[in-house]
Each structure stands twice: as structure tokens, then as C-alpha cells.
């Protein structure tokens, strides 16, 4: 009896959020799919069925092709960078250095700043004529000067730098928590077996951090696939769309160009991209949970 009442109560408490999520998340996803397959490409709603034509048109648009390439380049470098820098910082901080709390907070702080603010600041910093180039020059390092985001070939990596600054602190915090969870006995055991520091990390600690790496990759991955605000504030579409991402294209197509169906189609493609990353993870985690 007791259990049943508990169940009823928890179901009741969950109900509002289930309804809200049902309407505002899944309902709207359904609506967006519907619009994406309609002919609503002017300001007047026209919901007649267009099939997959909007999608076909999109994949033929040069700008969208560039966007997909940018998303791939951005996601790969951003993920690798964030995980690498995050792990490095966490390992350094884990060595019980003095002022650890200070550094931990300093590295974590950028995350508390909104992407819009971060993007604006990095727009100034990486501006070729007013930003870090001036610093480099006055430090006698003029050779390192770069056109940054004004050069189409490297522009997207300038945005990656800003994104790394903003998010690697978060990865560091996750890794730090993971490192603290690894018992000293394991480390000592490895040392007794004669493992060097490098071997210790390579064969004991990093493998034990795998679940953290996976969760961090999922969180960062879905951020980078959907990134909008940082890029919008920092570079916009960039020269020759070199920093354009599907989010910006979606915004302009929908709200500036009035092509609502095409905009919805871009959103759906973004959703699918994120789903491809998230769903295997969800399946994997429910499975391991069931085993445990």
C-alpha cells in the first residue's frame, strides 16, 4: 500500500513537468517538423505539404554546405581542445599546489559569463588591428601576428579559441571531481609496481576517467553543434561564411528572409545532428544502469 501511494504521489508531482515538456518540447518539435515539410516560404503561412523539398533545396545551398563543414571543424577542434586543456588543468591542480582554490575559480569563471559577452570581448581581442596583435607586436613577437577571424581559412579557429576559453574550465571541474574520486590506494599500488608518473596517468588514471570524458564530450558536443550566440556576437557569418553555423543561417532564413519552412528544416537537421550524438549515449547509460 505504502509503495503504491508513494508512486501515485510521485506521478502527481511529475505530471506538470511531463505535460509542460510534452507540449513545449515534443509538441513544438512536432510542429517544427510539420512546418519544415510545408510550403511556408513567404510571410503568409502556407501549410500545404511540400515533402522533403525544403531539405533537398538546403543541401544544394552553398551556404548550408559551408555551414556543415564549419560545424564539423568547430566541433572536432572544440571537443579535442576542451578535453585536452581541461584534463591538463585538472591534473596540475590535483597536485595539491598552493592557491588551488584561486586557480580553480579563475579557470571556472569564464563559464559564468554569457556567450554574448564572451563573444563581444573576443571580437575585440582578436581584432587584427586593435587586439592581441598589438600585444604581440609590443612584446617583439610580431611574427606571431595573425589576421584571426578576418582570414576565411582560419576564421573558425578564432571562434574555437573563444569557445575554449569559455568552456575548458567546465571540463577541468569535471575532471577534477573525477580525479578526487580515484582512491590513493590505486595510485600507491601503481607506484609500488614501479609505474612512473607518466605511466600512472596513461594506464591507471585516464582509463578510470573514461565515464567523465564521455559525459563531458556529450555536454560539449551538443553545445558546439547548436552554437549560435558566441558566433553571432563575435564574428557573425564571417568573410565568405567562414564562421557561419546552421544556427545563424536558421535565424536569418526565418526571421530576416521570411522563409519559415526552410528555417524549420534547418532546425530539424540541427536536432538530428544532436540526436545522433545524444541517443547512443542515453542507450549506453540506461544499459549500464540496468547492469548496476
Amino acid at each position, binding site marked *: 500500500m505504502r509503495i503504491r501511494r508513494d508512486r501515485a504521489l510521485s506521478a502527481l508531482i511529475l505530471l506538470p*513537468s511531463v505535460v*509542460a*515538456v510534452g507540449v513545449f518540447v515534443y509538441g513544438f518539435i512536432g510542429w517544427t517538423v510539420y512546418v519544415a515539410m510545408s510550403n511556408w516560404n513567404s510571410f503568409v503561412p502556407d501549410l500545404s505539404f511540400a515533402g522533403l523539398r525544403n531539405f533537398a533545396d538546403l543541401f544544394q545551398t552553398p*551556404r548550408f554546405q559551408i555551414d556543415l563543414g564549419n560545424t564539423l571543424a568547430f566541433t572536432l577542434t572544440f571537443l579535442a581542445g576542451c578535453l585536452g586543456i581541461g584534463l591538463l588543468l585538472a591534473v596540475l591542480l590535483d597536485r595539491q599546489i598552493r592557491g588551488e582554490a584561486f586557480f580553480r575559480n579563475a579557470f571556472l569563471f569564464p563559464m559564468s559569463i554569457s556567450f554574448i559577452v564572451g563573444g563581444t570581448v573576443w571580437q575585440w581581442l582578436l581584432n587584427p*588591428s586593435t587586439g592581441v596583435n598589438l600585444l604581440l607586436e609590443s612584446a617583439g613577437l610580431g611574427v606571431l601576428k595573425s589576421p584571426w577571424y*578576418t582570414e576565411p581559412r582560419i*576564421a573558425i579557429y578564432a571562434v574555437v579559441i573563444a569557445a575554449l576559453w569559455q568552456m575548458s574550465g567546465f571540463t577541468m571541474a569535471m575532471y577534477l571531481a573525477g580525479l578526487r574520486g580515484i582512491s590513493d590506494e590505486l595510485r600507491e599500488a601503481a607506484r609500488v609496481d614501479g609505474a612512473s608518473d607518466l605511466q600512472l596517468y596513461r594506464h591507471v588514471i585516464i582509463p578510470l576517467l573514461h565515464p567523465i570524458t564521455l559525459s563531458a564530450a556529450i555536454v560539449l558536443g551538443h553545445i558546439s553543434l547548436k552554437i549560435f550566440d558566441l558566433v553571432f556576437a563575435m564574428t557573425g557569418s564571417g568573410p565568405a*561564411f567562414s564562421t557561419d553555423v546552421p544556427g545563424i543561417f536558421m535565424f536569418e532564413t526565418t526571421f*530576416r*528572409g521570411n522563409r519559415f519552412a526552410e528555417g524549420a528544416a534547418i532546425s530539424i537537421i540541427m536536432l538530428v545532428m544532436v540526436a545522433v550524438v545524444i541517443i547512443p549515449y542515453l542507450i549506453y547509460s540506461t544499459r549500464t544502469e540496468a547492469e548496476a
Partner: protein
Amino acid sequence: MTERPRLAKTTLALLLAIAVLGLAPGTGLQAGAAKKLEIFSWWTAGGEADGLKAMFEVYKKRFPGVEIINATVAGGAGTDAKAVLKTRMLGGKPPDSFQVHGGAELVDTWVKTGFMESLAPLYKSEGWLNAFPKDLVDIVSHQGEQYSVPVNVHRGNVLWFNKKIFDENKLKAPATWDEFFKVAETLKGKGITPLSLGDKNKWEAAHLFEDILAAALGAEGYRGLWTGKTSWEGDGVKRALDTFARILNYVNRDHAAFVWDQAAQMLIDRKAAMNVMGDWAAGYFTAKGWKPNVDYGFAPAPGTAGLFVVVTDTFGLPKKAPNREQALAWLKVAGSKEGQEAFNPLKGSICGRTDCDPKKFDVYLQSSAVDFTKNALLPSEVHGSAAPEGFATIFNDILNLFVTNKDVKAAQAALQKACVANKMCK
């Protein structure tokens, strides 16, 4: 792994909170019995905001006791404001009156779709058909009825230059693009960037190209672009693109990092000698204490003497305006001599009306007002007058690609395709 269910719940709660927050804005606006008037624009900074305030003062004097809600969304050329406006209009919560560029932006987006109320009775009762030039009234009309009131006129095709740099090097403002290249070579030889450009928001490059198009095609050919009479794949457009590609050799290399006002600032900072921009740049110079014919010089953009690319800000009346009466009163002020004389000197534009007192305006605006009555008036594409917004966004995209790859053939094919897709040509 006991953390996970809790995480899921937190996520649910967060999603719910986001959903609720998303609904919150915009609901508390209609409350209260006092008379209100909500004016929507993208005039947030400098002379524009001051001009708008001056017009509000005129309104308050004539219609006391009305609370004016100044709803603004920042962003050059209204790119962000327009997106906000669309969601409000589609959501059935329009402002009482909103800023809109005359021409296609007004007619295609709002009039043909049935969102606007005709202002033909107002034009008659206020005698505006005689107060505004006919070409201008045509820009805000659809099937013989007027749908908005032009508050001001900006000129899109102006070449600005740093007068001191030009005097020091004994240069004259180039009248054609061929002359421009000679001047540019001289400047480049002296280590001065000839032309400043800031095209971070894309439209700035398109704006420059629009003026080149007008120069290459002339009034008749340029007008034909929007009706299908002039082909996008023809020689005229090819010549314009070739010229544009050549001009790009003389602009600052970091143009993708700047927006239009930073490009104007480069003239003040002596980092560049010339800039092609609409005459809102004059407003920017004035705000920075720069004087016409002393600090900066001006001329029609090369090759466009006798042509006047019109950018006109207008105000219209949405059908569902919550305070229709106050909105009509606002439109009367916006179209009146007093309202326009209060607004335009501060905004740095000339009146839409032809009877404004020239003494209230500076040297540049006086010369622009004279040209306005004499020149052929052309609609601006970039600023929404010439073509539907669907075309305008693609036009910006095509030119953004062109600035980097300079592929004339691809640009022409893409322009033609966009023209057909937007039903401007067959």
C-alpha cells in the same frame, strides 16, 4: 550512478522553467487605463534617438496626457529589430506604429499580407499628396493607396572622404570609378588605405555594390533589375561585379572585423581616406564633432551623379494596433512640417516633405535636399525598398561570398536564380 535520476529531474525542472520564462515577456503591456502609444523602431543611438525624442516632444505638446512607450531594438539597418517585429506581428501583438523602410519591405512583407491599414484618408485630409514628391509617395503605395508616412529621406549613394588627406595630396573627389582607381593608386602609394569598409554584418558590402550597380547600369537599367527587365546575367551586372572585385583591392584587409560606423571612424582616425555609405554617416561624423567641407568632404558615389538612391524610414498603422486613435495622431505628427523639422536635423537626414526650412539643416543636408528634388530617385535594394526581403537576404549572402572568392560567373548565376525564386523575373 544514483545521481542520474536526480539529474533527469533537474533537467525537467530547468526545461519547465525555460518554457515558462519564454512566455513571460510581452504579456503585461496592455494593462492600465491611461492613454498609451507604443512606437517601435531601431533608433537607439546618437542623433537617431535624439531625433525620435524631439518628435515625441512635438507629439506631447499637441496631445498631452499620452504615455509614449519607446520600443527600440538596437542594430544597424534594423536587422535585429525586424526579426522582433515579425514575431510580434505574427503573434497578434503589434505596436501602435512601427518604423519600416518604404517600398518592398513595406508592401511585400506587410501590405500584401493584409497586416496594414490604408492611410489614403489621412493623406487626403492632411494634404500630403502635395507635400511629398510623387516618386516618394509611390514608394509607400500599393494599388493606389498609401500605407505609411515617410518621416525622412536618406541618400544611399554618397562618397565620404577625409578632407585633410585629400587636400594634403592635392586630390579631388573621384566622379567615376576609373577616377577612383587613379586616386586610390596615389593614396596607396603614400601608404594610406584608400577605401574603408566594415562588412561584418554583410549588408555593408552589399550597400557598396548597390551603388556600383547604379553607376554601371544607370537609372533605367538599375530599376529594371527589380522588374526583370535588366538581366542579372547580362553585361551590365558583369561590369559592376568586375569593378567591385577591383575596388576590393583598395579596402582595409580587416574589413570583416568592422561594422559601418567603425568604417566611418577610420576616416576620422586617418586610417583610411574614403568611405561609401549612406548619409547616416554624416550623422555619425556630426556626433563626433566633424564638420562638413572642413573635416570631411562628400560627393555622389563614383558614377552616380544625377542619381539619388533613396532610403526612407516610414511609419505605418498595423490593423490590430491597440491604441489606434493615438497612433493616427502620431502619424499626423510624423508627416507634419513641425514634426519633420524637429526630427531630421538631429537624425541627419532630409525631410520627406519638400517644404522644410533649409536653414535648419547643415551644408551637407542642404545640398542633399537640392539633389533630392532634381535627381532620378532610385529605390535601395539593401535597405528594403527595391526587392522582397527573401531576395535581399540572399543578395547579401551572394555578395558576402563574392567579397572573398570574386567569382563573377557564380555570383551572376546565383543572383539570377534568386531573382526567379522571388518571382521578380521569369
